[in-house]
């Protein structure tokens, strides 16, 4: 199971630049491909594609979106137990333990790089207690609404 790049690809290299495992490969202005063995189904190639040229493992086209509108994880610390599964699950290493809380010295996960986050949602999917949700980035969400 892997994502697939259709003939609509224009070889802009956006997917190859963002793919966290290097599975999306190809030369500039040439049709890109995804090496199935290395695809972890994060869907980044589809989200970044300006031509909606990528199909998900079920054969549906993924709709591209400007990166600044991509959703980011938000952590509900009332449920989170700082087990670190999201830290481990993040394929781009964008989630780390933050500073220790004053109350019990527990360090909870936090997103360290808005720009680095690829909005794959692995943190949400893997969290065993559903303490993570993906939300639109606040400042650009307002911008999007206005637009």
């Amino acid at each position, binding site marked *: *199971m892997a994502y697939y790049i259709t003939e609509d690809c224009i070889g802009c290299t956006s997917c190859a630049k963002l793919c*966290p*495992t*290097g599975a999306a490969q190809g030369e500039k202005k040439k049709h890109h491909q995804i090496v199935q063995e*290395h695809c*972890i*189904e994060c869907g980044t190639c589809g989200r970044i594609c300006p031509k909606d040229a990528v199909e998900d493992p079920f054969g549906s086209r993924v709709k591209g979106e400007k990166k600044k509108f991509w959703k980011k994880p938000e952590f509900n610390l009332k*449920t989170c*137990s*700082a*087990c*670190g*599964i999201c830290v*481990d699950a*993040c*394929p*781009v*290493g*964008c989630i780390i*333990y933050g*500073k*220790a809380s004053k109350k*019990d*010295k*527990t*360090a909870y996960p936090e997103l360290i790089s808005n720009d*680095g986050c690829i909005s794959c949602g*692995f943190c949400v*999917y*893997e969290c*065993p*207690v*559903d303490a993570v949700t993906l939300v639109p980035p606040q400042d650009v969400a307002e911008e999007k609404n206005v637009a």
Partner: protein
Amino acid sequence: MMRKGYMGKILMVNLTTGDIHEETLPDTVYRKYLGGMGLGAHILYNRIPKGADPLGPDNILGFLPGLLTGTGSLFTGRWMVVGKSPLTGGWGDANCGGTFSPEIKHCGYDGIFVSGISPKPVYLYVDDYTKELRDASEVWGMDAVETEEYLEKHSKKSGKKPKVVCIGPSGENISLISGISTDKGRMAARSGLGAVMGSKKLKAIVLSGQKRIRPHNHDEMKRISKICNAWVRFQPPFVTGPMTAFVGALLRIMPTVLTQDGMLYKILLKKWGTVSMNQMSPEMGDAPIKNWKGSSKDWGIRKSYSSNPDVFKKCETVKFHCYSCPLGCGGICTMEGKYSHTHKPEYETVLSLGGFCMNDDVESIFYLNELLNRAGMDTISAGHAVAFAIECYEEGIITKNDTDGLELTWGNSKAIIALIEKMVKREGFGHVLADGVKQAVLRIGKGSEAFAIHAGGQEPAMHDSRNDPGFALHYSVEPTPGRHTLGSHLYYEMFQLWKVVKDIPKIPPMYLKGSKYKNNEKQAAIGAANSRFMTLVNSTGACMFGAFIGAKRFRLFDWMNAATGWELGPNQYMDLAGDIHTLKQAFNVKHGIEPKDCKISERALGRPVQNQGANKGRSIDIEEMMAHYWEEFGWDSITGKPTRETLEKLTAQA
């Protein structure tokens, strides 16, 4: 695409030839051996030739995550290292937490097995595109923390940080009490497997994988995890650190015992970590004092106050959670002017370098904890070696001429520090002790064996077998003897297994303390259930502290079914575990171990009985208990070796 919780492949590395290849394992192997320790037992039993030198090329060192690691279950981020132990000559394993375990699966493997001996120091690097042995001459000689920092920095490509396990100078020097380190101070310390890694000239393993781990039923995994998490989060305000000593004293004085619910220990562990037991254990008689010669009278509340739990809590800056752990018993400590980042010493370390050597200088314990973590040496065995040397010195068996001028008296923290520094470097008298007490006796002689407390070559831990006959049993009968993490009467009470597993002994809500010493057959049945359950825990990558909260809250059997898609009942899993346990014992027999020789030293059995303290008058009828325990698994009740019928049954099922 596999949705079974496991990856279906192992990686085999031959350091002599440099060959690295993958092997695909059939589902039947997982169905029978699960993963982790079970899978390790299967591979090692079949592939290490009879009589192989533990430090030679034929020994195989395996690094294994658990069946449940990365599947969405909680408390399942531990990894096992398995091999033939140079310390005991038989089955060896060590268990460790941290963040390394899921990385093995992210690289696509359920185990990495290393054989052969490299002609020069190397480290193994694995990512999604590369599997190679790299020159380790730059890091050879560095301590474990420096090595990890160096390899992290030099192996990082982008995004995720690579995960590293490595040995320190102690493993490089092939000290038989050395372990394998990860996360800058967490250690798979026991069985001397660091020496095996050192003998292979394998300095480290660096992993950086991106493969995903997929359970069979993701939603069900989450449902069970949420139940577990709710129990772990329940944390009422609790007493202060020094007050734990009075809880221990109360447990000592009371003639009856209420069956203990592990939630109490969970609350203590969440607040302080394992150091919560620093004062409570000696008071209740759970901690051996003064090389097993002393008692709670020698290490009373005033003495143990120096290492009361609040001392450690005060310098803890942030809690340390192993992967998938909602509890976080570990911690990172900062001490102004001394350490900016040191792992909080564990209970075992504090007691083995503290009360066990009559050392009440807590600063020395912090120093030694960091020193031993960096060196990659087991703190439990190191403490035993030091206490053994002190007793030899006090009894006049050795003198200042032997100890390089060190005045080895009880509680002399300066001499203890100097001695351990020598052990790490294998210098002078340090060399005599650097391979544990059994080897030290061979080097010293002169009747010193009376002071060497060990089981089959391995030093036991800081849990007194006279206080809990379960410890005496597990120290003596396990294929890897001298271990405290495989069972005890107290653990059995907390596991509450009888609530989900049929036909195993139930513990009444209240019982007389003395009753534990009378019914050897029942104790053996309890021990067998513990061994089976802990085999499951170690095969799934689970944490014993998680299991402490009870089988209905920590639903290991349900997690296994949801992760793999199997539909097995708890008793079926316990039967599988029994087979794995027999396989480990068969491994020992294959390699010439006589199970009855693994019995723990007499002093730890209350022979002679103590005349004061919490364990006054207690002695353990271990021989009868061992015979009953062996029968539970279909092993010969006199020799402890699996009978022909048991082995035939085992191979018939394969």
